[in-house]
């Protein structure tokens, strides 16, 4: 099975669980879900570094330990939800306990292992299920503001929320995570992917010069103090392509996480698509009438 399909199914599996448990609103409580399934949960001391989470078993008793050395509530909830992914997803037993009764994880879309990625997508679907996420999203203006409001509603990290937002919005949006001079990760909305004719910046690509992101990243203290900036920009500087496309670049330092979140919104692309659809609709109508007469 293609990995993209497996990841989508993992997310849908979490969303189905939320529906089955009849959880009607955000935020989703992964601790309560664990408790309802008789899974013990224990926090690691906040002084302990190491793995972000562990799923453990003895006989019929299951438990999850999660790291608290990163104080972000969103990160901790995601770590627990990731371990729940290993518990609820089919086919994870071989992977998780292939050698024993302890499985350790590094949650947060950093692993290349398909089982770990599936658990990450399960966690995203559990904490930000589409049906509830989209309802909340519809209440906010597009861009960084929407991501912040969704993050508050879902009690998820800005990073995880931004990725979910880019994957679900109908607007022309790209989300970029960067550290210092380099891009760590980029996620584009469907509209950006299908209509933008852009090059997808890969991990390790330099952050474009003369952008608000590059300037903020040049000062570690601005990142550490969660400084932010909004500026008019051109998508061509970020993603190449065959033409200039004005966009808004919103940048936020992510504090002690050390990364920067950039949200690029391209309303011009949305307008172009709307115009295309209007033209197509008009042509279709004329064609329809021409056939009748």
């Amino acid at each position, binding site marked *: 099975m293609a990995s993209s399909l497996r990841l989508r199914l993992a997310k849908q599996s979490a969303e189905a669980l939320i529906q089955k448990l009849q959880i009607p609103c955000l935020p989703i409580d992964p601790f309560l879900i664990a408790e309802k*399934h008789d899974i*013990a949960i*224990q926090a*690691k*001391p906040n002084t*302990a*570094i*190491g*793995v972000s989470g*562990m799923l*453990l*078993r*003895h*006989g*019929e*008793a*299951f*438990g999850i*330990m999660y790291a608290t050395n990163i104080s972000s509530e969103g990160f901790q909830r995601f770590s627990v939800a990731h371990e729940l992914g*290993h*518990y*609820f*997803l*089919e*086919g*994870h*037993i*071989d992977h*998780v*306990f*292939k*050698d*024993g*009764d*302890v499985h*350790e994880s590094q949650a947060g879309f950093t692993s290349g292992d398909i089982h770990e990625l599936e658990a990450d997508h399960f966690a995203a679907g559990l904490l930000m299920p589409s049906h509830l996420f989209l309802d909340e999203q519809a209440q906010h203006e597009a861009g960084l503001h929407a991501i912040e409001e969704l993050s508050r509603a879902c009690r998820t990290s800005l990073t995880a929320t931004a990725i979910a937002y880019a994957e679900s919005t109908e607007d022309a949006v790209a989300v970029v995570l960067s550290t210092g001079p380099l891009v760590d990760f980029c996620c584009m909305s469907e509209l950006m992917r299908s209509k933008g004719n852009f090059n997808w910046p890969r991990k390790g690509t330099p952050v474009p010069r003369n952008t608000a992101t590059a300037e903020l990243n040049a000062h570690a203290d601005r990142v550490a103090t969660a400084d932010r900036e909004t500026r008019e920009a051109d998508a061509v500087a970020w993603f190449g392509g065959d033409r200039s496309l004005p966009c808004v670049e919103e940048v936020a330092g992510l504090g002690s996480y050390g990364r920067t979140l950039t949200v690029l919104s391209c309303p011009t692309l949305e307008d172009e698509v709307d115009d295309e659809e209007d033209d197509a609709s008009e042509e279709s109508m004329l064609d329809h009438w021409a056939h009748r007469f």
Partner: protein
Amino acid sequence: MTRKTPPFQEFNSRLRAARDMRGWSQAVLAERTELPPSSIAHFETGSRKPSFDNLRRLAVALEVTTDYLMGRVDEPTLAKDGDPLFRDVAKLSGHDRDLAKNFLEMLAKQNKEKNGA
């Protein structure tokens, strides 16, 4: 007798054997586990593998241990207590190893209480 085998090498045959032992049809087992009947059929043919949640539901309904279903012990009611319990914790590094070890001890106690031992 306990032994170390990869999980699910024997799962489908163990599930079938445990269901036959209870004299239940796949439909009855599905009802008792609240799983779709098609899932039971897929598990028994080996075309799908269960989640831990599925595994635990099946073990509880069939009154066998998850270790039996996973092929880690041969007796249906035996858990893999005979093995050195914490050997796999050795894979973890430093502080995580101690934390996991203590947590597993707590789970072991919880498991024992559940089984009324």
